[in-house]
């Protein structure tokens, strides 16, 4: 851990906020992709053919 001096809170919160937001967009993307893929395979299975 580097010595952040008097600005430790600022630096850490900036990094934390950025990483948190990046995680949010990545997880949201993955979540949506999973949901769409699941529903798509459901429908394709029901129709009994693969694309």
């Amino acid at each position, binding site marked *: 851990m580097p010595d952040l001096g008097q*600005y430790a809170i600022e630096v850490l919160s900036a990094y934390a*906020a*950025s990483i948190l937001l990046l995680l949010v967009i990545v997880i949201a993307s993955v979540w949506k992709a999973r949901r*769409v893929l699941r529903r798509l395979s459901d429908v394709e299975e029901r129709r009994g053919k693969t694309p």
Partner: protein
Amino acid sequence: MASLWEYANPRKFMTVSGALLPWVWGIAAVCLVGGLVWGFFFTPNDFRQGSTVKIIYVHVPSAIMAVNAWFMMLITSLIWLIRRHHVSALAAKAAAPVGMVFTLIALLTGAIWGQPMWGTWWEWDPRLTSFLILFLFYLGYMALWEAVDNPDAAADLTAVLCLVGTVFAVISRYALVFWNQGLHQGATLSLDAEQNIADVFWYPLITALAGFGFLFLALVLYRTRTEIRARRLKALIAQERMA
């Protein structure tokens, strides 16, 4: 070399992007983690700004990518309007939330950085303000995508909005410079020091920038694949209703 437009075929796009994605994710992760760890742990403090200079490794790359994301949307919107490639329109749709998150990161880290350096969370500096406006543009663009039911009409309308929005965003950028100069001189808050930034700061910054860039690419490819599947799903469901 085959034509670039070959990748506008959804199936071709799906195969290529599927093969490409693990690599892009990998490079993005390596660069991003590498750049941020390097910047956070192994760079010296600035003699004036102290340790806050470390914020630059998230602030500058996200800001650069936030603007680039809009330009990418502009180009894909143009391709959609001119050549009617669906993948292009869906890529623009996929890029918008990513660009919005980058804008938000740039704004947040800017505010956090501004607090100790300028003594205020928010300064109506042209650069900051134009990012806030860019954020509003992203919001409007995404809201319009959500609001229109017919996917082709939504793609057309958002593409037109993106074109007009770009022109007005650029005008706003210059208007803001004018506006701010009119109100208070001096107080240069920009990051122009970047030009003579030392190599110790430069290399990790470039690495982090590459990380953000590849992360954007990975997310856009990934989300475009989702959008293509969602479009197919919608078409299949519509077919079933008709049958």
